[in-house]
């Protein structure tokens, strides 16, 4: 376990040594500030009739960030941690240490997931704080917290898909292109063919909608959990198989 955690720390260190992630943190916060300012402006101009998010800014922002922004961060981080290291051969730096490939693989996945969680946590803190500062008061914090936590589940499946795709190529730009293409296609198919949306993992990006508000019956819920678990298992085992067989 010590080596797994050492690997996770190292992968996080490597990701955080890239300035672009701090820029993306800043952009995330800036988008939240701009949206709340526009919301206040719109509300003032319309005499309180029109607003962007209605009651909850943090849930409204989650809808955008969990569908577009954070998946892109996850794709980028997976390319940095896998395909980019395959092409410049820095992946060897880990593989010549006394750590199994399974531990190395899992520690990379953990680091990317932690990165995604940090972005989610930043979003929650920013939106809740902005709501508080703008006089809206901190409403339903625990509800938002629960929603963010629930949305981390399909995000993890998306991460495993990104890691799997990264095993197919040595080029990080090709991997990023493939990931965006696959994600866009799956999302579009989910919109235009509603019968399929329930079968695609991308249709569950707002997982919290199934739990919070209109709660669906237990049996269909179990089927959806099973579906996500199935996707996760396929991507995880397929990705690991390819990583284990890879030669450096």
């Amino acid at each position, binding site marked *: 376990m*010590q*080596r797994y955690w*050492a*690997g996770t*720390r*190292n992968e996080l*260190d*490597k990701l955080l*040594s*890239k300035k672009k992630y701090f820029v993306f943190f800043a952009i995330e916060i800036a988008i939240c500030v701009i949206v709340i300012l526009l919301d206040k402006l719109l509300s003032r101009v319309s005499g309180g009739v029109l607003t962007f998010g209605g009651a909850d800014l943090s849930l409204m922002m989650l809808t955008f960030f969990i569908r577009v922004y954070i998946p892109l961060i996850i794709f980028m981080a997976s390319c940095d941690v896998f395909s980019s290291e395959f092409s410049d*051969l*820095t*992946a*060897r*730096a880990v*593989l*010549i*240490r*006394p*750590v*199994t*490939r399974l531990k190395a693989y899992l520690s990379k996945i953990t680091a990317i997931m932690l990165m995604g969680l940090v972005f989610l946590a930043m979003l929650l803190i920013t939106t809740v704080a902005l709501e508080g500062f703008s006089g809206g008061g901190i409403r339903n914090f625990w509800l938002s917290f629960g929603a963010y936590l629930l949305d981390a589940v399909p995000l993890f499946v998306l991460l495993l898909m990104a890691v799997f795709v990264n095993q197919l190529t040595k080029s990080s730009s090709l991997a990023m292109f493939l990931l965006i293409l696959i994600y866009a296609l799956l999302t579009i198919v989910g919109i235009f063919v509603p019968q399929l949306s329930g079968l695609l993992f991308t249709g569950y990006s707002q997982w919290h909608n199934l739990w919070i508000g209109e709660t669906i019956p237990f049996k269909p819920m179990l089927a959806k959990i099973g579906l996500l678990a199935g996707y996760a298992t396929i991507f995880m085992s397929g990705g690991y198989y390819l990583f284990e*067989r890879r*030669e*450096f």
Partner: protein
Amino acid sequence: MEKILEVKGLIKLYKNGRGASDINLELEKGDVVGLLGPNGSGKTTIMKAIVGLVHANAGSVRIFGCDISTDFECAMERAGCLIEAPAIYENMTAAKNLKLAARYYPNIDEKRITDVLRIVRLDKYKKDKVGRFSLGMKQRLGLALALLSEPELLILDEPANGLDIEGIVEIREIILRLAEEKGITFLISSHIAVEIEKTCNKVVVLHEGEMLSLDSMEDALKRNPTLEDYYLEKVREKRGPVEL
């Protein structure tokens, strides 16, 4: 004598038919074994297969009695290596690169990091980003990374690669000193016969992926004035007489 490394019937062939076949090696404590052969003779392939960077088609590798394919952590715990170009993160400092590697081992502290940087004469550049290093400095950092865990077996693929004359002599002196003072066992590859002759006490001749011989340096130089002549003798023996 304790067996440090055992390679039995190792075969690794790439899709283009190149690689290494039927490699048998045994390294005992204190051995400094040189793999001598031209580019494409299989030196790097053998080293990669030993440390698990490529998967062998057949054969077995045991380091300190631990099988590389079934007990990797045990096998690599007391081994260090530098294969081809050093695997270093160019956007980080030399010290940070070593710190990341140190986390995989218990009891490697800041002092050890400073010590290995001093051994390879990079202590002045401890806080410099590796991206700004010359090829030789990167190679020395690669050696520092291999030495970090105080390994008992060091596998070095062309360690003098990219170094100037002074650097080559320095690396050689470091190897000889570590072998003598700390009893570290070395497996070193080079295509330069003089390098192997001056550094190693055993030599393996490789040609087109085949192991032509394994001799002590003393025996090799008994019949031949230089290691270069020994190498040519072995290659000619394999090829047979060449008609002009």
